[in-house]
């Protein structure tokens, strides 16, 4: 049987080396892609909204910081705010938390990925980019357990190899070089994946 599933949302986790990696992915996302994109970039607790401003200029989607109780809208890229975990609620809105760090990180990729997987289930795509710790590994495992699709940046193209390496070891659906990621996502999100 050949079923086509359509994806509802994209989550991205990235740490050390993130600015360059995100620059190679986010502006490459098609303007026609109307699913929301939610990004956790590890950063220092007192960071300002530089990333949001920076990518808002570069991307065809509008780029915003995620806020507590904000309904998640199509065609928007959201960044987790510094020093808060970002969670997805059942009604597809955001929630924030100041709970203890996970994998030394707040925001933590695992927290976003696990809560998003609960809500979007098989409709979720998760991407792990460059980073120097193991955050996101539990997250991609949770996404796969719910039937979602997971991608890791190939460690050879990653500024820091640990994070994608750890995700790959736990198991992901696809490993891609950095420059292949945006085109692949554009195809995946527009057509869905043809499944046998």
């Amino acid at each position, binding site marked *: 049987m050949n079923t086509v599933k359509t994806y509802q949302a994209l989550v991205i986790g990235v740490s050390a080396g993130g600015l360059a990696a995100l620059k190679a992915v986010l502006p490459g996302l098609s303007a026609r892609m109307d699913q929301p994109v939610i990004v956790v970039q590890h950063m220092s607790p007192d960071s300002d909204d530089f990333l949001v401003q920076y990518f808002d200029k570069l991307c065809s989607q509008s780029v915003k910081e995620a*806020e*507590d*109780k*904000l309904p998640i809208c199509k065609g928007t890229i959201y960044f987790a*705010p510094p020093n*808060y975990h970002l*969670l*997805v*609620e*059942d009604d597809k809105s955001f*929630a*924030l*938390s*100041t*709970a*203890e760090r996970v994998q030394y990180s707040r925001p933590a990729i695992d*927290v976003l990925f*696990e*809560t998003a997987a*609960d*809500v979007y*289930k098989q409709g979720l795509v998760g991407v792990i980019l460059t980073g120097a710790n193991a955050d996101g590994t539990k997250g991609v495992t949770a996404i796969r357990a*719910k*039937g979602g699709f997971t991608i890791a940046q190939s460690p050879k193209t990653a500024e820091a190899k640990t994070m994608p390496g750890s995700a790959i070891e736990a198991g992901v659906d696809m490993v891609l070089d950095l420059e292949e990621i945006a085109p692949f996502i554009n195809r995946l999100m527009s057509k869905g994946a043809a499944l046998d």
Partner: protein
Amino acid sequence: MTDNTLEENETIEMKLLLEAIHLKYGYNFKDYANAHTKRRLRNRLKMSGMTTYTDMMRRIIYDEPFFNELLMDLSINVTEMFRDPWFYLKVREELIPRLKTYSFIKVWHAGCSAGQEVYSMSILLEEEGMKKRSQVYATDFNELILEKAKAGIYPLDVMKTYTSNYQKAGGTGDFSDYYTADDKNVILKRGLREKVLFSSHNLVTDGVFGEMHLIFCRNVLIYFNRKLQNQVLQLFYDSLIPGGYLCLGSKESLKFTDFTDRFDVVSKKEKIYRKKLMAE
């Protein structure tokens, strides 16, 4: 069983567990933000070695120490002295001059956790010469954490952050004057507790706390769903004098609540609001 049935059953079990907590101990977590509660319960289940929420529910009912651990999971107690130093700088520069126009002020720290932000404000009131003219109420629903708040003892290793926060927040003294240290902990000076009344108060189930000039409730509302946020904001609204101030966490706002029209924004970034003088 399909995945959907499994999830549906898990949701039913979690609801029953929260109902059991309410019936047995009086704490109502039913209107907490769902994703947060689910995450905390899942973690505790994993750590406890039990496999189902029904097993955990039984343990909660019969084993109070176990419930107390879970209570700590469900009430987030991560904070710092002078957390978000720029916020305290704003309080010092913008709010304190306004509050000095009153002969006496009442301050309420709602959800005070282990007291770090209460003592931060005590220091600020002392340095600004407002201490004698103030009464501070610090409340939390978790009595164990309230005991920690009363003690005012913090691990030595966080003092570096607290000191740096204090300086960035416009501290006018030497931070080390406010505590004495041994090799593991610091104990805050008793004087900082003089004007503070610690008491148990549950924002979900308890009533109005009257005639406040200033309410701090930072990073508490994010754990509530919209219905409960509105209920608690009504409680704050009723507890504030007209023109009284409400301070929320740096990523909280009144934006998605029913109260946007009943407060003026004093400071957008610092999330300082003022109850309108006249009811509309």
